[in-house]
Structures are given as C-alpha cells and as structure tokens.
C-alpha cells in the first residue's frame, strides 16, 4: 500500500506540473488556434534561468519571478513580432518549431550541454509525514499546492473575470467582439504572454525534481500534447483532468514497466481518441 500511495502522490505532483504546462498551451490554442510548439522550449528556458538565478542569489522565489517575467516577455515578443505574419494553422505551428529549434540550441550554447539540478527552496528540503510511516517530500506538496492555486485562479480568470469574458467572447465570435470595442490583437498578445508565464512557472517549479537538460523541452512538449489530446484541446478543465490522468498513469506504469511507461500513456491516448476523438472535454 505504502509504495502505491507514494506513487499516486508522485503522480499527482507530476500531474500538477503538467497542468501548469498544458494550461498555458491550451489557453493559447483555445483563443487563437495557435499550436505553440515552442512551449516546451519556453519551459526549458525558464529552467535555465532558474539555474542561473539560484546559483548567484540562492533565492528560489526570485528565480520563479525572473523565470515568469523573462519567459512572459519572450512569449509576447514572439506573438507580437513573429506570429503576426501568418494566420494559418500549419505555418504558425511551423514557425513555432523554428523558434523552438533556435532557442533550444541557443540554450546549449549559453548553458552548455550538461544536466543541471536546481536546489529546492529553503524550508522545503525535507519530508513531510503523512499517515503513520508514509513520508513525502514537502517540496512536492508545495508543487501540488501551487498547481491547485493556479487552477483556481485560472478558473476564476476565465469564468468570472472581465478579461475572461472578453477572451470567451473573442473565441466565440471574433468580429462581434471586435465591434463592441475589444482590442482582440492586444488581448491575444496578453493571453500568449499568460501562456508563456505559465510555462515559465512550470519550468522553474519543475527544475528541482525533473532537472534541466538539453532535449527536455521536447519530452515536456510531448507530455503536454498528450495531456491536451486526452483532455480536449482548448479546454482548461480538460487540461486539469488530462494532466492528473497522465501524471498518475505515468507513475503507476513506471512500477510495472520501468522504462516503458510511455507505452501505457500511448495506449491510454489511443483509447480515448478512439472513443472520443475530441478528447474528454473537447468540443468540435
């Protein structure tokens, strides 16, 4: 029981991290129909920023702020400067692949090809005793907590706030939204920035337990794609449920087939696609 319980908790931790990542990805997709394939690279860059900030200041909170800020600005620049040249899906997706290759290689140039591990923030380096003899790293509890807070915030932002209403209006009928005075272009850039900020947050938070290394960007992109395909593209609730499913499935499958948990996830994705082509919460 103990090890299964721990694996499920580990799965929830990974799931929360995947949620942060997939939420940004799905938000951008939902509003603009842009498949941002540089999302994993933005995540990785935030990890590298965290490596540098923690090395010089030893302050994790500062690293998180720097990561979110830098990646958020980078995201808005990508949208404002580059993505405005094309409005078709395939060219946009290909453009973001170009960006991913560029920054992925730039990161190797700047930080070298070595794997890094960021030290956990002060106060979260030990373990936390749950029931009886089960102990669980307190940093992971922090990750779960942040994931839940962000989920609640995004739900409020999307469903209850004025900006959320504007975004939903933009998704449903762009021309109408424009005609009642919503600046859709600016709104899109801001949402792209928000998506990038979420990738930045995920990148900093993930750095202490998944590490930061070349190639990690594409692994992370793969997982967020799977989450979004399972949960339904463009849906925040779908991203949350999908992330939990993938996180827990990945950790449970690792007990059964240590290096081939992707088989299990692959099967799960294929099954869901066969039954519901638009994912659990998707709308066609």
């Amino acid at each position, binding site marked *: 029981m103990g090890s299964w319980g721990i694996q499920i908790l580990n799965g929830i931790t990974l799931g929360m991290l995947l949620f942060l990542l997939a939420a940004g990805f799905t938000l951008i997709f939902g509003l603009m*129909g842009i*498949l941002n*394939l540089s999302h994993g690279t933005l995540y990785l860059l935030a990890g590298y920023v965290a490596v540098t900030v923690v090395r010089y200041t030893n302050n994790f909170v500062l690293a998180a702020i720097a990561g979110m800020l830098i990646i958020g600005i980078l995201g808005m620049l990508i949208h404002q400067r*580059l993505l405005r*040249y*094309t409005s*078709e*899906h*395939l*060219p*946009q*997706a*290909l*453009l973001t*692949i*170009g*960006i*991913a*290759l*560029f*920054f*992925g*290689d*730039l990161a190797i*140039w700047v930080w070298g090809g070595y794997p890094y591990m960021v030290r956990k923030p002060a106060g979260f380096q030990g373990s936390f005793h749950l029931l009886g003899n089960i102990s669980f790293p307190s940093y992971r509890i922090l990750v779960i907590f942040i994931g839940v807070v962000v989920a609640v915030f995004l739900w409020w932002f999307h469903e209850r706030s004025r900006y959320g209403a504007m975004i939903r209006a933009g998704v449903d009928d762009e021309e109408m939204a424009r005609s009642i005075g919503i600046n859709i272009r600016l709104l899109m850039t801001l949402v792209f920035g928000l998506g990038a900020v979420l990738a930045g947050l995920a990148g900093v938070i993930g750095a202490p337990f998944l590490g930061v290394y070349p*190639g990690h960007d*594409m*692994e992370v*992109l*793969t997982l967020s*794609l*799977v989450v*979004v*395909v399972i949960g339904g*593209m463009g849906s925040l609730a779908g991203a949350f449920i999908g992330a939990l499913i993938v996180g827990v499935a990945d950790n449970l499958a690792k007990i059964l087939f240590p*290096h*081939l948990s*992707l*088989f299990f*996830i*692959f099967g799960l*994705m*294929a099954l869901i*696609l*066969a039954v519901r*082509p*638009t994912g659990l919460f998707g709308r066609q």
Partner: protein
Amino acid sequence: MKKHILWVAVAILLLLLFVAPLFVPRYYIGLLILTFIYGIFAMSLDILTGYTGLPSLGHAAFFGVAAYTVGILNVKVFQNFGLELLAGLSVTGVIAAVFGLLTVRSRGIYFLMITLALSMVLWGLASNWTALTGGHDGLAGVSRPKIGQISWDLGVTSHFYYLVLIFFLIAVALMFFVARSPFGVALLGIRESETRMSVLGYNVWLYKYINFIVTGLFAGLAGILFAYYNGFVHPSALGIGTSAKVLFMFILGGPGTLFGPLGGAGVIVFLENLISAYSERWQMFLGAIYVLIIIFAPRGIYGPMRQLIRRALLWNLSS
C-alpha cells in the same frame, strides 16, 4: 510541342543522374542520395497534405518506424535486403493503418496535433527503450544491403547510389501515377470540398484512410533507404524535427505541385550540410531559416521563381 521539350528535358536529367558518379565528387553524391531520400519523403507528404489537405506534423513516424525496423533486423537478427525491405514496409503499413484509424476522422489543426502527439510518443519510446533501439545513443552498425557479390560500400563504389536512384525513380513514378489517377483526382476534390464529394457518392473517409496508409508507405521506403545510407538510426528520425524538416521541404517547393517538394528537399539538404560544415550552431541557423521561410516565403519559392522566370522571358521577348 511544349510536351516534347519537357520529355527531352526529363530524359537529359535522367541521363545526367545516371552518369553523375563519373564526374561528381563523393561528397555531393552523398547529398544527392539524401535529396532522393528526402524527395520521396517530401513528395509523399505532398500527396497527403498538398493534395488531400490533411496537414500532418507526424509524417516522420512512418519514416522512423521503417528505419528502426530495418535497423533492428539488420543489426540484431539477419541481413537480407529483400526481407528487411518487406518487413520495414509491412510494419510501417500496420502502424499507418492504426494511426489512420485514430487520426483521419479529425481535420485541420486537430489532425495536425494528433499526428504530432502520436509521432512524439513513438519518439519517446525509441528514446527510452534502450534494449531494442539503443535509446538516446541510437542504433549503430546498420550495414548496406548485399545483393549477390557486389560491394555496396559507398566509399568504394557507386552501387549504393544506383540502388537509391532506382528506388527513387520507381517511387516517383508510382506517386506520379497515384496523383494523376482517378484516386488522386478524388483526393483533390476532397481537399476542395468534402461535402460535395460525399454528395457525389465518394466514401471520403475511405479515400483519406487509404491515402494515409499509402503515403505512410512511401515515407517508410524513404526511411529504409535512410537507415542504410546513414548506417545508424537515431530517435530524431521519428521526432518533430524530422516532421518539420519535411514540411519545410514541402512548403519551399510549393504545396500540391508534387515535384516542387523534391526541389525543396534538395534546397534544405544542401543548406543543412553547408551550414553544419561551417558552424556547430547549425540548429540555430536552421531554426532561424525556418522562421524566415514562414515570414517571407509561406507559399514556397516555386511560385515566385516561376513568375520571375516568366517575367524575364517576357522582358527578353519584348526587348
């Protein structure tokens, strides 16, 4: 008259390709081989994406699966060109049949995303299944096919060039035939209007599905030749980088032109080798080039170039 000129041009080009090893340096023969391989790959993508309107970001899945099938058989089991070819194509066909069931009913950006997700999961598997695929380090030691007593070593003879050339010509002829057949015309109809085609009595899903498998098989053939050429199979053959590369070949050459993507393949193969000869940071350059292509030549270089040539001709005639 115009048709005559075209046939003469094709005949001269073929002749040049057949005598190329006599006067072209080894290095460029290698690039030509890569152009043929990526040419098959990009043309198959053109039939799927340009002709039928199914934008796949996971076409490398078939290329990579075929390459791995041949590589694994060649390194771990036996070396028999015929059987390896057969196995490579069969496994690719099965994977394409399964992926097709999952993807073909979605459209547009959903199709894009699901094909990408499926191929990336295969990439992840190839990276992690070290016992079978060699993992991140790749699978080394794939030897070129032995047919009879001929040596196929590229360094010694040009036989491997001819092997690839023959497969290339067969594949191009077949794809040309597919594109011009009633089946190919129906695909164009599906791209323009699915509703109209189904009203006319075409089973749109079946056409798309068969097309998905057929183009997957051509990509697989390219992957098999690639495995032999490199002597090495790496997970990147399955990944987003390869899928994107072939899409850029397709875009550069001009979607829906069939032979355009072959030109695009040549451009990207030469560019990539040129940059990587001068800089270790060739991936950065490649990424930047991709961005520039989308910004400045989103319709490819074929259309603008044809216009330029036409304008030059007109200018010549009028002066």
